[in-house]
């Protein structure tokens, strides 16, 4: 899949190289300085790189599932087992060792998973945007540090390789922008057995990006992105609404830009004279709540119990407003 490594138009820098170069610079400086602490990256998705003596120990980012999500969501480690190990390791802080001791996962497998999570996190950082960063020499909290920690060169090389592979796909997929829906007629019949395509189709509701599906499945973002690209090429998936994210000059600039589209909608909602505007729904004492949009009443909640809970004087609002 994709073009051979290093195959690129002469003299043309890939578009991701700017971000990767910046990351490379920061990580190399920290490695030289043997920094023990964190690099806080503000951006999209942004994140925190944990360092010990200049080597990378862990990366937390909203852009990729961390080791805990990878273990739990995939079902590799059951929730009660994790909770017990986490509690038992409270004093020592060594959750990984406790998981291995309880035979919930092998030491080798855990190390491989932690490396994979690191590579995935570095990939989403490098594919994203950086507004600013700061280096803090105070070590941060890290639930599952990779031991021994790894120097940045392998991480950066692997990240560069992954970005090149994705850029060379015939139908490129942006892991944090493109949302996916199942194509009409994409049913179980045409799917490859054991490939996980059914679970992806079940998640493809037009709202989820590759990143979102990775979190839901407990898999890596890069791996899910490749699979989505293939399923799209095979006609199993169609793109939904793209995620619109403002550029990252600064935080205040970011908020400003993000509001523009919404402000237009707000302006267009100006109430003209005589237009009937439905009032905010109000609960009438003794009345029953009307389900909105014809949804079936009830469902798993006991609606009557909820209404009792919300009556003034129960546990509800302090005062009747307006």
């Amino acid at each position, binding site marked *: 899949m994709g073009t051979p490594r290093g195959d690129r138009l002469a003299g043309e820098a890939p578009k991701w190289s700017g971000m990767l170069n910046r990351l490379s610079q920061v990580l190399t400086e920290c490695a030289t300085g043997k920094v023990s602490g964190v690099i806080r990256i503000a951006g999209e998705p942004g994140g925190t790189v944990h360092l010990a003596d200049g080597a990378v120990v862990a990366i937390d980012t*909203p852009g990729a599932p961390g080791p805990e999500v990878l273990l739990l969501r995939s079902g590799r480690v059951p929730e009660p087992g994790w909770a017990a190990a986490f509690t038992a390791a409270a004093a020592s802080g060594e959750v990984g060792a406790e998981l291995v001791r309880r035979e919930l996962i092998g030491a080798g497998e855990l190390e491989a998973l932690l490396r994979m999570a690191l590579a995935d996190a570095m990939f989403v950082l490098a594919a994203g945007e950086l507004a600013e960063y700061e280096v803090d020499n105070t070590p941060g909290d890290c639930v599952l540090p990779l031991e021994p920690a790894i120097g940045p060169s392998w991480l950066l090389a692997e990240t560069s390789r992954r970005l090149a592979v994705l850029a060379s796909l015939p139908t490129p997929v942006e892991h944090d922008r493109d949302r996916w829906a199942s194509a009409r007629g994409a049913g179980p019949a045409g799917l490859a057995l054991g490939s996980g395509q059914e679970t992806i189709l079940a998640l493809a509701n037009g709202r989820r990006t590759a990143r979102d599906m990775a979190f839901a499945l407990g898999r890596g973002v890069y791996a899910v992105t490749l699979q989505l690209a293939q399923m799209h090429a095979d006609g199993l998936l169609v793109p939904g609404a793209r995620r619109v994210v403002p550029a990252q000059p600064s935080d205040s600039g970011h908020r400003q830009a*993000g509001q523009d589209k919404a402000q237009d909608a707000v302006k*267009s*909602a100006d109430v003209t004279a005589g237009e009937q*505007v439905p009032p905010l729904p109000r609960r009438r004492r003794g009345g029953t709540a009307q389900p*909105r949009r014809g949804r079936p009443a009830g469902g798993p*909640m006991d609606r009557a119990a909820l209404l009792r809970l919300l009556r003034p004087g129960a546990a*509800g609002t*302090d005062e009747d*407003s307006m």
Partner: protein
Amino acid sequence: MIEDALLALLGALRDRVVGITDTALASRDGLIITSDTADIDPDNLAALAAASLGLAQRMSAEAGKGTLREATTRGSGGCVAVYAVGTSALLVVVGDEGLDLGRLHRESRPTVEAIEVVLKRGQSGLGGAGMAAS
């Protein structure tokens, strides 16, 4: 029109902050105004959000912690945050494990303010009609 504006604001928030999976706007007494949800029942979500916001406000007052900023519920699979919108409405935001709550709390502020503006405009249009009816 109002609903379009509200849905646009909810959609923009979900775009802006990675990890948000669903959002909803409800009245303070637990009835849904509009929602941007997938598999979550908006009516149940609205009722529970109103209850939890009310409880959280009383808790904050009881513990002497000032004005409530948000009511947050964390689970193993993600979180739910509820924000008051003025005195008559509330915003619910549901997110997965990757949602950065600190960032959400910052990013939701402008959305809450914008929603308030839209709702107020809607209600000022209502004033005449309501008085005429009674």
